Every structure is written in C-alpha cells, then in structure tokens.
C-alpha cells in the first residue's frame, strides 16, 4: 500500500536538485497529498484508500520529478560560459602554442584553484565540475609520468602511487555523485582526452615529443574546444537523456580527432583502453549512484517496517 512518505521518498530519489529546492518541492507535494487525502476521507474513503487515490492522482513520481527537474536543470548562458571556460583556456593554450609560457600556466592554475575553492563553498553549482575535473588531472598525469622512471623505480612508484591516486579520484567522485551522477561524468570528462593525448605523443624522446606536440597542437586545441562546446550544451540542455547523449557524442568525437592525428602512437590495446575508460567514466557514476542509493534505502526500509 503506497503511503505519502513512500511517494515523497521516491520523488526525492528522482529529483536531483539543489538541497533547498528539493526540500521545498518534497514538503510542498507532501502537504498537497495531505490536503487531498483529507478531502477524500471527508468524502467517505478510508485513510488507506484516500492516500492511495491521492498519490495516484498526483501521477508517477518519476514523471513529476522529471518535469520539476527540467524546470531547474537548465543553466543560464553565463553559467554555460563559465563551465566551458577551463576547456577554452586549455584550447587557447595549445592553439597559441603557449604551453611553455609560465604566465599562462600560472594563470590557468590560479583560475582553476580559485574557481574550485569558490564553487565548493558556494553550494557546488553546475559550473564547478569542469573546473574540479582539472584538479584531478595532475593526479593522473603524475601516475602516467611515473611509468617513464628508469628501471624498477617505475614499478615501485606505481605500486605506491596508483592506490593513493585512485582513492583521491574515487572520494571526489563519490562526493560529486551525492549531488548528481551526471556532474561526476561531467567532471571526469577531460580525463580520456588528456590520457589519450599523453599516449599519442612519445614521451621517451624529449626532442621528438616537443616536435609531435607542436604538430598536434591544433588538433589538441580542437579537442578541448569540442569539450568546451559540449559542456556549454550540457548546461543549457534541460533533459537528462540529452545531457548523457551530449557527453557520449563528445567522447566519440574526441576519439575521432585523436585518430585523425595520423602520427598517433596509440596501439590497438591503447584505443581499446581509451574507449573502455571513456565509457567507464561516463556511465560508471550512474552505476555507483544506484549502488549508493540502494545502500541508503535498505536501513530506511527496515526502519519503516519496524515502525509499522
């Protein structure tokens, strides 16, 4: 038998809004169900029948939650621009061949750190997550660079570093999923791009690496510009399925851009790794989100049973 509490719990599961808005919506719909149940009881229905009818009249919680989500999910053009800005800055860095310019690098670093600190302590708005993603990239990049250490040092460093790096990425991702798993996918979006370009360029020969970087700079800039465009589109789109579609399209587009590089050093295994990684980072947060919600609901169901 559905109860008002079951309905609002279910609604809460699908809403994924700012906590204050979410709480207002849930309280408001709960109050409505109370009024409607009261009216139905006065018309002669039993309490159980009245609750069941009131929740049925309200409509499926998924549907109501989706409609309310779509009211709030669309960011403004300003938010879209600010969310796309870190990718635009990196695109400009490569397009203008400024990757050796300390001032540029320092400017980007300050912008990333400043935006992340500001956004993290100001209710984590949607624009924060692309910036947050850039905070995770050094963690991954260091791991990759460890492979190039001489002799057994590479294995030793990797054994110590990889679990630590994974722990950092996992805990930040888990925190982000609590807000919305789509934001975690948005945050992790540049990782396959950065890893892909790192694999595509030979690191062992420094001279060759610089030469390759110079030659591929336009394509690297193009891939980051595509990232920026996708992030802006993501912020402006209302529907969740369209947001997922935008991120998936981008992953395919980036892989095509890398393949167009021609002189790419990525092997078949490397491509397979990149494709699987892109899919994992895109859809993994959704799976993790489901697991977290299921784990949170178990004690709730038990407490509901015990109070009956």
């Amino acid at each position: 038998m559905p109860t008002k509490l079951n309905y609002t719990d279910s609604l809460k599961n699908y809403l994924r809004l700012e906590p204050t808005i979410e709480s207002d919506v849930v309280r408001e719909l709960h109050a409505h169900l109370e009024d409607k149940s009261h009216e139905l009881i006065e018309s002669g229905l039993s309490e159980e029948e009245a609750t069941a009818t009131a929740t049925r009249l309200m409509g499926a919680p998924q549907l109501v939650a989706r409609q309310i989500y779509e009211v709030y999910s669309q960011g403004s053009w300003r938010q879209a621009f600010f969310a796309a800005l870190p990718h635009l800055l990196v695109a400009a860095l490569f397009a203008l061949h400024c990757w050796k310019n300390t001032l540029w690098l320092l400017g980007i670093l300050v912008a990333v750190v400043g935006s992340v600190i500001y956004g993290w302590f100001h209710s984590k708005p949607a624009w924060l997550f692309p910036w947050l993603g850039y905070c995770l990239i050094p963690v991954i990049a260091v791991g990759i660079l460890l492979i190039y250490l001489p002799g057994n040092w590479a294995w030793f460093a990797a054994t110590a570093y990889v679990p630590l790096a994974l722990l950092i990425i996992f805990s930040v991702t888990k925190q982000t999923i609590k807000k919305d798993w789509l934001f975690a996918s948005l945050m992790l979006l540049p990782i396959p791009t950065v890893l892909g370009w790192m694999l595509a360029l030979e690191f062992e020969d420094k001279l060759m690496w610089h030469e390759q970087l110079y030659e591929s700079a336009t394509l690297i800039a193009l891939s980051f510009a595509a990232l920026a465009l996708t992030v802006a589109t993501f912020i402006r789109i209302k529907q969740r399925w369209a947001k997922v579609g935008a991120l998936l399209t981008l992953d395919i587009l980036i892989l095509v851009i890398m393949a167009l590089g021609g002189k790419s050093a990525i092997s078949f295994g490397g491509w397979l790794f990149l494709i699987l990684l892109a899919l994992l980072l895109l859809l993994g947060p959704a799976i993790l989100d489901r697991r977290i919600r299921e784990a949170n609901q178990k004690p709730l169901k038990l407490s509901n049973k015990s109070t009956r």
Partner: protein
Amino acid sequence: MHYERELLKGSTDSLLLCLINHQPMYGYQIIKELQKRSNGYFQFKEGTLYPALHRLEKAGLVQGKWQQLSSSQERRYYYITQKGQEALAERLAIWQDFSTAVALIMQPVTG
C-alpha cells in the same frame, strides 16, 4: 480532446498568474479555485500544476513563501511579483485581441 489539451497548455501560465494576482494561493487551493471558477471545466492534474508553478517561480513571475496555517500545518503560498504583473498585463492584452479576432471569424454572420 487533443486540441483542448493544446489550448489549455498554452494558457496554463496565464491562468495561474491571473489567479495568483487575485490573491496569493498554495497549490491545492489553486486547483480547487480553478475548478470552482471555471464551473468544473478546468480539472488540473496535480503533477502538471507544480512543475508549472516552479517554472513561473524560476522565471521570476511568482515567488513561493512558506506560511504556517496551524501548529502542524504549513503551506507554500505563491505571490505574484512586479515582473509577473507586467507579464500578466501583456498576456491579457494579447488574449483580448486574439479572442476578439477569433470571435469575429467564428461567430455566425448576422443581418
């Protein structure tokens, strides 16, 4: 039926603004008032009403405020904003012109 639904869809925001302009109301009250004032013609689905109210609030046309009715009851009342009043005045003028023009064509010719 489809035509009627489309007509209602296009007028939902104006109807809500008009009611809230008359007096601040909460969701359940709005449904009842719409039903009463239209002699039962407008049977608003609850699941449609709340997204519409939140859409108006996000657009800055109305503002929701919690009010205590009794010790255990509180309801979220919607108030029209200045921007909402301006939007309503504009919509009413358009509606007036539109309905006059439609009536001129649809009404049977007399004389």
